[in-house]
């Protein structure tokens, strides 16, 4: 496993470099733009002397490169993400941690629903290969994948909140409330197609395996053969791959879902921070998401290596 350990180490060593480049790019783009937090805060009729004083206090009047140097020094030496310009009495981890917690719980719900529907649908499609049911099932979920979240949410609100009055039309009051249902559906529907397809493909691969024939020959009924022997085989690779891959889609979907439904999660908070030019908060969120992406991709690759020894052997030098 020496090669594998070295591979993981190399990937992890690349993470700080990635973070360095991403942070510099984000830092530069945010501060290069027109407007800064002080001008957003002070508005149109401002006192020029006070304006300049506050800008100087936060170092916003220095060249961008110098500001980045100071930022980098603070974050490396003290683990300090710098001040938030909108919430000045709280540290940045204190501000974003609860937002991430809300989004994470929503994400877990969406994952669970995606798998609960996607895997049975994929296995079903594979078993029915050759009949019209196979393309039909896959096409239904492909259709849901084609509806932008932006469209899905208002339609769900129209039907379930405005017309039927079954569900609240937005907000967030805890994990065990009806307010979780619409965002969970909106987040998971687009990613079900991917899971179903992968489950279908892996199931097709196992359908003609010897152990399946043995199970049938033992006289087990078809339901047991499918659920115990075929589905279980395809479950593991599908889960590991999709969790990593759909993390990206889930985070992107969360931006729209949270904004449309007024959920106080990280997705909505990013845009509030961009509009308020809250530089340090934007940067901190971007860095957190980047780290999550890199680690998720690494996990997916590792899972694939563990599942498929051929990749391990053929990997060689990258």
């Amino acid at each position, binding site marked *: 496993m020496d090669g594998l350990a070295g591979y993981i180490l190399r990937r992890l060593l*690349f993470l700080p470099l*990635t973070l360095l*480049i*991403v942070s510099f*790019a*984000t830092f530069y*783009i*945010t501060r*290069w*733009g*027109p407007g800064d937090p002080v001008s957003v805060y002070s508005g149109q009729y401002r006192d020029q002397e006070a304006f300049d004083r506050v800008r100087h206090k936060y170092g916003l009047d220095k060249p961008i490169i110098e500001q980045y140097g100071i930022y980098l020094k603070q974050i490396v030496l003290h683990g300090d993400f710098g001040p938030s310009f909108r919430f000045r009495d709280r540290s940045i981890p204190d501000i974003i941690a609860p937002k991430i917690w809300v989004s994470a719980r929503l994400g877990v719900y969406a994952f669970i629903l995606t798998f609960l529907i996607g895997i049975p649908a994929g296995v079903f499609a594979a078993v029915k290969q050759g009949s019209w049911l196979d393309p039909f099932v896959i*096409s239904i979920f*492909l*259709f849901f*994948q*084609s*509806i*932008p979240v*932006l*469209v899905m949410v*208002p*339609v769900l*609100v*129209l039907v379930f909140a*405005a017309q039927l009055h079954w569900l609240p*039309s937005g907000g967030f009051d805890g994990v065990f409330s009806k307010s979780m249902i619409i965002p969970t559906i909106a987040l998971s529907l687009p990613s079900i197609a991917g899971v179903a397809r992968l489950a279908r493909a892996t199931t097709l691969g196992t359908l003609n395996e010897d152990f399946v024939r043995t199970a049938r020959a033992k006289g087990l009924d078809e339901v047991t053969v499918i659920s115990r022997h075929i589905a279980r085989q395809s479950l593991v690779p599908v889960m590991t791959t999709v969790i990593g891959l759909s993390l*990206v889609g889930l*985070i*992107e979907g969360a*931006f*729209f879902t949270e*904004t*449309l439904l007024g959920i106080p999660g990280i997705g909505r908070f*990013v*845009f509030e921070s*961009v509009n308020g030019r809250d530089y340090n908060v*934007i940067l901190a*969120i*971007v860095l957190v*998401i*980047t780290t999550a*992406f*890199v680690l998720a*991709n690494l996990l997916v690759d590792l899972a694939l290596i563990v599942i498929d020894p051929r990749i391990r052997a053929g990997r060689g030098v990258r």
Partner: protein
Amino acid sequence: MTQQTQLNIELAHAEAGMRAGHAESLTRRSLRHLLRKRIALLCLAVISVFYVVGAFAPLIAPYGYAQQNLDLSFQGPSLHHPLGTDRNGRDSLSRNIFAARTTVIVTLATVAAGSVLLPVTLGMLAGYRGGIVDAAINRTGEILSSMPGLPMLVLISATLRPRFDRWVVCVEDGIHYHGLTSSGFADYFLIFFALSLFGWVGGARLIRAQVLTLRRSEFILAAEASGASTRRILFQHILPNIMPIVIVGVSASLGGVAAAEIGLTFLGVGIQPPHPSFGALITDGAPRTVLQNHPALLLVPALTVASLIFAFNLLGDALNDVFTSRAK
């Protein structure tokens, strides 16, 4: 005509082609197989209608996209306004048609750059040159793909927009033509730029992998041994063999680009009013009071977009089937 005779005729045609020295290419043969699939044809039809309507929007739309009539705000469907009017009394049908034009422009430009030009150039370079070029392209792609796309796009658009606007005004002064700003050119260009910047990574990776396998194949070695120039090898020998990947990539990314433009416009950093885009139409139709009383204002653009992206996805599937089964 029975199937057997049809098959015979086809075989005869194929033989004639081979004798004439131009065996049908993999790409052509696969596309011909695609045209036999009914679903693929249906998707192509939907997409073509959408693109023709979008391209000829000014000729087809009964009204201008910004033409207001405040006396007629929120009208239901009528003979004059087949899909009714919006808050400002603008004709809903015309706005949808012009929104299609926005989608057509943005998807074509972005896909040309972000799914064809950049991935092919960078993928071939990385795969064929190897070494430091390969490493640089790979690492850049890795970093771009580990950034959270949407917030970065929002940041880039927010930062670059005023600069692009100023730049467009400069260009206008230079060429003495003053329609660029009002045509919303800066918005289109910004979206195109931002989406292409992040869009090339996946395609370039696939193409690089394919080039790596091709490089070791016998016909490339033969070409190298017979002293063919690098340019000749890349364009005559390698390019035709990565065409399937490019075509599948294009069809896969079209839907994503269309959706991304809509999302960016919804977030306020895409197409600016009064220029219509499905993102703007959906945003206008989504508030609850509007939605409850005039659902058509949301449902028409929503269904149009959903069916377009659905057609792209189904077509992408069919293309994938055709190419992967034929390549074996």
